[in-house]
Structures are given as C-alpha cells and as structure tokens.
C-alpha cells in the first residue's frame, strides 16, 4: 500500500511549495482528537523525521510517520472544489465512519 496524490492535488501542492519558497514535501498524519476520535493533519514538511515512511506521487514527496500510516495507508489525496470552497480531501479506505464535517474519523 502507499499514499498517493491525484494529479490535480499534486499540481496544487507543487505550486504551494514553490510559492512558499521552502519545504521538502508534504506531511500527512493522524491526531487523536476530533469529534470522531481521529483527525487528519496536513502540513508542509521542512524536515524528515526518523522512521518516516516516504512516498512519491506525481513528483511530490509525502512523509508519514509509521503510527499514522496504519490509519491512512492507501489514502489518495485529492483536490476538490465545492461551491466557493476549495481544498484537499482524504480518500481514505480505512475509514469506517466519519463525522459530518469529515475532518475527523474512525477506523
């Protein structure tokens, strides 16, 4: 399994990192907060940590710590537009149920 990005998501990430002027890639993680137990973390990565799993998808390097990977392995990160709003979306096959907002989930 792995973490992948859709081409659209990768284009946006590359654009953001270029604009930001620094960063080695993207960090995905899971935090134990939120109304349904777990919450996604999506950050720029300036450094890699020991034990990080590294993936590459459409030219974007993605880092995930092994503990988080268990919850999100197989996830495809997409970029979507909903009305005026736009942003990244986790298509995570491990999710059993998510809260209405979709920001936190359960496996």
């Amino acid at each position: 399994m792995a973490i992948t990005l859709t081409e659209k998501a990768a284009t946006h990430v590359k654009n953001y990192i270029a604009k930001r002027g620094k960063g080695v890639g993207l960090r995905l993680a899971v935090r134990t907060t939120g109304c349904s137990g777990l919450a996604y973390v999506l950050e720029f990565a300036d450094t890699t940590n020991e034990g990080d799993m590294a993936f590459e998808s459409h030219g974007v390097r993605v880092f995930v710590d092994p503990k988080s990977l268990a919850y999100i392995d197989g996830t495809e990160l997409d970029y979507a537009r909903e009305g005026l709003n736009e942003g990244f979306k986790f298509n995570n096959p491990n999710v059993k149920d998510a809260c209405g907002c979709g920001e936190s989930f359960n496996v």
Partner: protein
Amino acid sequence: MALLQIAEPGMSAAPHQHRLAVGIDLGTTNSLVATVRSGMSVVLSDENGRPLLPSIVRYGADGQIQVGYEAQAHQCADPQNTLISVKRFMGRGLKDIPHAHEMPYKFIDAPGMVQIKTAAGIKSPVEMSAEILKVLRARAEKALGGELVGAVITVPAYFDDAQRQATKDAARLAGLNVLRLLNEPTAAAVAYGLDNATEGIYAVYDLGGGTFDISILRLQKGVFEVLATNGDSALGGDDFDRRVFCWVLEQATLTPLNANDTRLLMGKSREVKEELTTHPETRFTAMLSTGEMVDLQITSRILAEITQSLVQKTLTPTRKALRDAGLTTADIKGVVMVGGATRMPHIQRAVADFFKQEPLTNLDPDKVVALGAAIQANVLAGNKSGEDMLLLDVIPLSLGIETMGGLVEKVIPRNATIPTARGQDFTTYKDGQTAMSFHVVQGERELVADCRSLARFELRGIPPMVAGAARIRVTFQVDADGLLSVSAREQSSGVEAAISVKPSYGLTDDQITGMLAASRDYATEDMLARALKEQQVEANSILAAVAAAIEADGTLLTPEERAAIVASQNALRQALAGTDHHALKAAIEALNHATESFAARRMDASVKQALTGQKLADIST
C-alpha cells in the same frame, strides 16, 4: 466533507478550530476579500467568478439593500439611493466633503459624520460600508467553510483617527472582528514580500478608479514607516476613459449625445482602454441610437498621447511626496504598482522613467492590497510560527494635549510605532483647583489653534491643593489600529477620567501633508509663539498671585513699596499686551524682584501667626 488546507509544520488546527482570517481591501471604487490558503494568498471570487465587488450600495424603498454589481445596475436610474464612493464620506462632516452639492445625495449634516437620506431611511457612511463588508464576509465564510476569527482591513495611509474609527465601526456592524487596520501601501508592500527584506525605502504608486495616492515607506527593523503621502483625490482610471471618450467625439464629429449613447460610448471607451493594455491597436465600434455608426482605429500610441497630461498629473504629487520625505529617486529601493489603471503600459513606462527603475508589476494591481492584508491576517490569527515578524505601523501625526496658553504638549511623537502607551505628568494651575479639562489634539504645530482637535474630557474630584501640588498622570494609549484612548489620573486620590477618541471631523490628505509642511515652514514662528505663550502664562500667574497677596497682606507694605509693586504690575500688564517675549520675561523678573521683600515678610508673618498662642511642646513634636 471538509476540504483541508496545508498548514505550516506543527501549526495544524484541531478539527472545527481553523483560524480562518481574511484581508479586506475596502476600496473607494471596488472592494475585495482575500485569504491565505495552503500558505498562498488568494483573492476570493463570488459565485460568478468575479473577484471585485463594486463599492456600491443601493437602498430600496421596501427596505431591500443591494450591494455590488446589483446596485451598480441601478446607478443611472436611481442615483439618489445608489451610493458610490462612500469611503470618501467616512468620518467626515459635510463641510469636509468637496463638491457635496454636486452629488445626487440628500446629505444631512449630522454632528461628527455626515448622513444621507435614502428611500430606506437615514443612513450613515458607516452603515453603508458595513453592507459592503457583510457581503464580503458572507463570501469568505462560504469559501472557507466556517466562521471567521477576524479580518485585517486596509485604509489609506492618510486616514486620520475619525476615518479609522469609522472603518472599525463599520466592520463591527458587519459582524467582523478587526484584527488590525493596515495602511494600504503597507499591505501592497507586504504582498510583494518586501517586509522580508532587511530594510529600504519603497514607493507605492496607487492609481485606482477615481483616486491617486503615492506613499513613500521606509522599512526598518520590521517597521513600515510612512515617510510621506500625497495624491490627487480626483484622478483615476475613469479620467482615462473620459479622454478616450472625448477623442472619439472629436474624431467622429458627433453631435451632442443623449444619455444612453453617452453611457454606451463611455463603456466602450473603457473596453478599448483595457484592450490597448495588451494589444498595440484595436477598433472602436459602436452603433448609436440614431443609427449612426462609429468605427475608429485606435492605437496604444494615441492612447498614450491623449492621456499624457493625466500621467503627468500623477508625477507632480509623486515629486512632492519625495520632496516632503527629503529624498530623491535614487533613494528608492523599489516601486510597487497598485490599482487597475497601472496596467496601462505607458503609465508603467512613465513611472519607470521617473524612478529610473522598473516598477514591481507581477502581482495583479487590483488585488495586491487585499493579498497583503490577507497575509497579515494569517499571521495575526496565529497560523504562522513565531519566526514571522509581526508588522508594525506608526502613527502619522503627533498626539498631544493642550496646556495653559493654548500650547500643545506632545505626548506621543509622530512616527512612534504602535501599539504604544505613554504617560506624562501634569499639575494644577490654581490654588484649590478641583477639576481639570483636557483637550486632546493631533498635529505637529506648537499652538493648539494650528492643530486638529480630537476630543475633550474633564477630570473632576481632584482634592483641593495649592497650585502645582497635584500630580495628574495623563496616559495616551494607541492600539495597533492607530486608535487613541486617553486617561487622566490624580495620583494622590486616585480619581480617574478617560476617553476613547472618536473624533468628530476628518482631515484630507492634503491637510495632513499641509500640516506637516507647515510644521517645518513655521518652525521659527512656532518657537517664538511658544516662548511668548509660556511667558504670558507665567505673567498671568504671577499677576494673580501678587494681587492675591496684596489683598490678603497689603498692610505689611509701606506706601513706597506698594507704589513700586504697582508700577511693576502695570509695566508687566503693558508687556503682556505686546508680542515680545524677551520684554515680557524682563517685566516678569522686575515684578518678581519688586515683591521679593514683601514675600519674605509675608512668610515671616504667617509663620508667626501659626506659632502664636501655641505651647512650645505642641510645635516641637
């Protein structure tokens, strides 16, 4: 499903606790809202993909309120209730608004700020601006999928306290938490990342729809200081459209047009002007209501020629601003272009020639102010790590308090970085004085009459003491938005009084630059005026004291002594009527001298009196 943005390392927000913040450019002609998404500042467009919101509000008789393009559609049919350029009325009294009688509005001269009678009742410019802000807020909340924690709103650098306060009030009315008011040129500089540079002096050239502003900024240790502003409040892109329109009338030898044809040709003129930004030539074609066809070839060279004088009109204030700042073009490290009209290549060329360097044009000049405001909002909302410095602003004019004789005691000097708080001690002028009135003023001159009055308040309940014994600490506090609050506290009794300055009238930028220039031009006069006033205060005070002493203890004087004192008193009164502060000072000293032995005798007498009839034991303890 919520859509996520990429956060800075370690700065991810908990679910439902995103710190959503926006930057708002509340413009005279158009307004915009921007935010930082995944580290990138972007302008938020409406459902139709339009980034700009025309700053136009229309009040219907049924109480319906339309804003933006919807309101713009009614501008011609219902001018009385369709309000444009409301920003010009913010924090202004009727007498501050030039050409008010030429506008189609029913102005009401309310104290403090003008109001306008509309079909939906009497409305203030603050309420009108709030309607614009409400639309932008709704747009932002839809686009960001949540409630905003706050907004940074931009204001012109020359906005005074009244105008800033009015802007803040409008935001509050629109349900927005104002994180900071930011100067427009500063926001533009931030959008270009100039705040990351070490230091330097920058010029911001802002040619909007109907106004031109030039600002000279100095960046030093993370602080943008506004060195000078200048401009023309009646010059903008619209004037360029009008020149094209006139050119068309001339070329096509058109007879006077009806209103519809005028509007048609004005609209076409604008289109053609915009076309010529990217194309060397284009055609002007229009069918008039008379069936007449207008078809002309226009080139960018013709456009440059017919608008040459307008471009020159922007360079005159630019030159003045540089002169006010005491700089030459060689001192300018970068030039930022703001406002849609700066897209015209011949303007960019003129600016490049003037400053002898290429101006910064790679950001959309319509959006650059909003983009910078969004970057600041993102930092203030706490989405960036500590290494990013907070931007500081400075106060544009000194703040002070009136002292005896109509003099200004400056408490916070001009260009002090904000937020700031400074205190100064004052005292009573008369024996037994129990109240003190404070007059807060803004300006660079030495006399109150030459500065601008901001507010007055009183401190009552001071315990009666001899003149000069009370210690009254006056504290001026300016918050990060440049808004002032003043408090006064008598130290021994703790009585307090305070005021937030919501001044009643505004100054134009011309007045501000005028006031600054005057403070330099009149430096010597001001110094003399101050010296004279100080001596006058001193003279009045000593005359009052001597008169009181003679009244109380006149019996201690011999007739000769009394005659000498009266002569000195008269000499002093005479000197007081003149304007020579040296002569006045001499007369004060003469009176002091004439009363020396009298004062000593009074002292002895009062000591004797105090001791009379008391046992030694009582006074030695």
